[in-house]
């Protein structure tokens, strides 16, 4: 079977299928988690957000919330969340909210404002009410990489930077895909019994290539990344879901989001964040947490929600975030194609389970889904170790080892810190060592510097690539023996970082960006390099 799409859904499907003994090929046109999977809040919803408006999604969320805390411990940080009521909000909504949560089995505990403030000092002190729910943060990049890693450990093959350009059809049956290698342009055909379309918003185009229509609904959501942890709990507004009303502490940073804007299919690859969106995010964000107004903003980014348009809601707010699993044989009379879409980052496992159940049914395989109980690679032990000894041991590690342990969980055992050079930091902001970079290149399908970012947090910190890009390129060039390729990668990496900084380029972030430019342009001569190639093209 072939899974199209290296987002969280595709990765989850590939893993589930591999665990059930299928021969799997995962095809992704860019890198893992480059679409909506890597462009979201990283929020492990308790389901509370949807309890009032979409109880079906809420119930899916709460179930998956409990499962992911067990199977993806290295990706999840159990922060808990607050739903706060501000003076301008209707406090009556809180009662409805708590009742709705309880109805679908979400723990929701009403707190008085003083308690909430003591629990989360960053929250707006003028709150009139708060409810505590089991929200958490989840690292989407790690989640995708871990699923892919486990799929590969169970025999799956993975082709990143390979685009599906055609679905091979024999009569009323899809029998394979034609893929194009993005680097070489080379094309090849892969035959299989079933293709699972897990391509997110691009699934619309994949379906179209197979000659079927799925009316999908691209809704762009923008977010801002703040320089450090401002809050320790997820902070939500206790009201009907609206713009910029969730602040998530994600790894070393805090994230405010999102906006929601309907866009056309021409725009789904642009991911531009506008000045108006930045305004809304900041204005609304400071209502949740006033200190955001004085916190350095690292960057802005946007993703496109792969919603399935089943009504004409112009803002895409009341649309169901429920899971859509389509058997195109049943729906369109086309055998060999399954589409799995809708859903959310955190219901990916359930989506994968439903798609894999369907695949197995179609192939006459009876093995059962085990992903709800089988931990992902890395999830075995908790970061700190519950024991005193575990704590002491963790404390005694050097920065690069701590960073690796925090990100890769028990898989960090495979990262070899043998020579002192292995401990040297490539990315100082995010404590990524030479050894971790090597591990990501060797074991986690990282082909480019931007992929290393998604595997390790390289360049995601305060300096946004200023210090680490060149060093990582050095490690990569050494391992691959390809200095030219690595150098070209640096330019791409820095350009990609700048794209995110530009919408919020003021204050210290602008100084940083300017400094980065001097460094790469002036000191490293990267600007000249680009100019030279421009001249050649002329």
């Amino acid at each position, binding site marked *: 079977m072939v899974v199209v799409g290296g987002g969280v859904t595709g990765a989850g499907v590939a893993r589930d299928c591999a665990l059930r003994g299928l021969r799997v090929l995962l095809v992704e046109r860019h890198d893992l988690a480059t679409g909506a999977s890597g462009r979201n809040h990283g929020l492990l919803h308790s389901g509370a957000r949807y309890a009032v408006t979409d109880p079906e999604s809420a119930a899916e969320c709460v179930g998956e919330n409990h499962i992911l805390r067990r199977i993806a411990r290295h990706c999840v940080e159990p922060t808990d969340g607050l739903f706060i009521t501000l003076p301008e909000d209707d406090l009556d909504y809180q009662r409805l909210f708590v009742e709705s949560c309880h109805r679908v089995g979400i723990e929701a505990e009403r707190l008085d404002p003083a308690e909430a403030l003591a629990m989360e000092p960053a929250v707006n002190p003028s709150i009139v009410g708060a409810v505590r729910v089991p929200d958490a943060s989840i690292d989407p990049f790690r989640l995708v990489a871990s699923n892919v890693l486990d799929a590969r450990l169970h025999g799956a093959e993975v082709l990143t930077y390979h685009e599906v350009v055609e679905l091979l059809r024999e009569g009323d049956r899809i029998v394979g895909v034609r893929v194009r290698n993005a680097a070489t342009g080379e094309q090849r055909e892969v035959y299989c019994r079933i293709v699972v379309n897990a391509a997110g918003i691009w699934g619309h185009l994949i379906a179209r290539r197979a000659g079927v229509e799925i009316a999908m609904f691209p809704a762009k959501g923008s977010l801002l990344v703040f320089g450090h942890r401002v809050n320790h709990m997820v902070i939500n507004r206790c009201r009907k879901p609206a713009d910029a009303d969730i602040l998530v502490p994600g790894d070393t940073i805090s994230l405010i989001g999102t906006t929601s804007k309907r866009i056309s299919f021409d725009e789904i690859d642009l991911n531009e964040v506008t000045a108006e969106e930045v305004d809304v995010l900041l204005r609304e964000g400071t209502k949740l947490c006033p200190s955001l107004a004085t916190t350095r903003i690292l960057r802005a980014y946007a993703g496109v929600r792969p919603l399935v348009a089943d009504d004409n809601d112009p803002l895409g707010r009341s649309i169901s975030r429920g899971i859509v699993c389509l058997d195109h044989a049943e729906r369109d009379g086309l055998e060999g194609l399954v589409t799995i879409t809708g859903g959310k980052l955190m219901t990916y496992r359930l989506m994968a389970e439903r798609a894999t159940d369907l695949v197995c049914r179609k192939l006459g395989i009876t093995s059962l889904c085990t992903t709800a109980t089988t931990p992902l690679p890395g999830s075995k032990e908790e970061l*700190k170790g519950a024991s005193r000894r575990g704590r002491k041991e963790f404390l*005694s590690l050097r920065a690069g080892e701590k960073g690796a342990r925090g990100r890769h969980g028990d898989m960090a055992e495979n990262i070899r810190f043998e020579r002192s050079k292995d401990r040297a*930091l490539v990315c100082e*902001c995010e*404590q990524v060592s030479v050894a971790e970079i090597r591990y990501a290149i060797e074991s986690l399908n990282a082909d480019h510097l931007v992929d290393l970012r998604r595997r390790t947090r390289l360049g995601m*910190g305060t300096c946004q690539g200023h210090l680490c890009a060149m060093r990582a390129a050095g490690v990569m060039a050494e391992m691959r023996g390809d200095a030219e390729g690595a150098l070209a990668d640096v330019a791409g990496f820095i350009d990609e970082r700048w794209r995110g900084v530009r919408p919020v380029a003021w204050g210290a972030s602008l100084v*940083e960006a300017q400094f980065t430019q001097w460094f790469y342009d002036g000191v490293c001569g990267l600007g000249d390099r680009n100019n030279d190639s421009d001249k050649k093209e002329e």
Partner: protein
Amino acid sequence: MKLEHKNISENNFEQCTKCTICTLYCPMVEVNPLYPGPKQSGPDGERYRLKEPMYYDEGLNYCLNCKRCEISCPSGVRIGDIIALAKVRNRKGLPTVRDMLLSSTVSVGSVATRMSGLVNRSLESERFRRGLESMVGIDHRHTLPRYAEESFEEWFRREAAEKQSCYSRRVSYFHGCYANYNDPALGRELVEVLNAVGYGVRLLEGERCCGMVKIANGRKERAMRDAKRNLVAIRRAVAEGDKVVATSSSCTFALRDEYQYLLGLDNEDVKDSITLITRFLFRQWERGNIKFAFREDFRMRVAYHSACHIERLGWAIYSTSLLRLVPGLELEMLPSRCCGMAGTYGFKRENYDYSQAIGRPLFDLIEASGAEVVATDCESCKWNIERSTSKRVMHPLSILAAALDMERTRELNGVMDK
């Protein structure tokens, strides 16, 4: 909200543009690969510690608190403070016996001066120091400062206090533990010089240790208690129109900056009234408020070493300008380098080698210089340089006292001889 407060976080840690110049200026980085360096220990590490305190890197304990990182920072990030606060937060349980001993400057000092003969003899004995090393971890190779037979305060009460009211102008003196217990001569010289230029001196009521060594040894609560008492005393003196002068650059720095940034005490009302004696004297001289008459036969070749905390204050210029007023004094500026001592840091067994390695280039420069005397405003630099080089080390005020013709100075300033 004022515009300048926008985007300014505590200790400016978000203002870091990752230029890494601080790491270049860090004396510890030069000698110790286990120290992550100020950038990584400070603003970088702080992000991880905010995420989860377990990311605290034990390598931070190597930080000298010299603040040279802060001096070098073009973005005004208080890197040293970020590190110092992280160390304090990470400290759990009681300090070790060694750290208690080293940081209890008042209790140890008051006992040691009473039995100074025995204490000094013991400290001179290598066997005793080896015992001290194996028992508590104070490196035996380091000579510990000698204790005086009589504290400065005792001398002052007996000999000087009464006469101070004859002067028309007055300052309060924060002597610090070193001048009080180890070098009362420095305190006596301060009184002599200030009296000669027409200033009466009084002590603060109930002066406590400035707290610098207590903060460095993880005893923030005790430091806080002392700091609050000192501020009460300083406020009283300032309210009565006094400037508060100190001879120790580190005490001065603690009273002015560490109180504000590390202890979180509001000292804004008195900060500008706390100053270093050399700065006070030079500025008074510059304004024509006081005059100096120097001995004609005075000759001295002096190399000035700017201690880390005077460097952070930006005040080395006052000490050197004062020294330059002395005819017959040849002044050589040593390149600004940490001597490695950093208060109690260099005494500790685990730090000794790093401390000496940091100081080595400075010691070599001192040996190679033509100077007879090294001048510095910091007592801990004085101990370290004296034991590590062949030169004598003096406080600039002591040099001034030696160079002044006291009788003529008193006349010039209209002070009647009693």
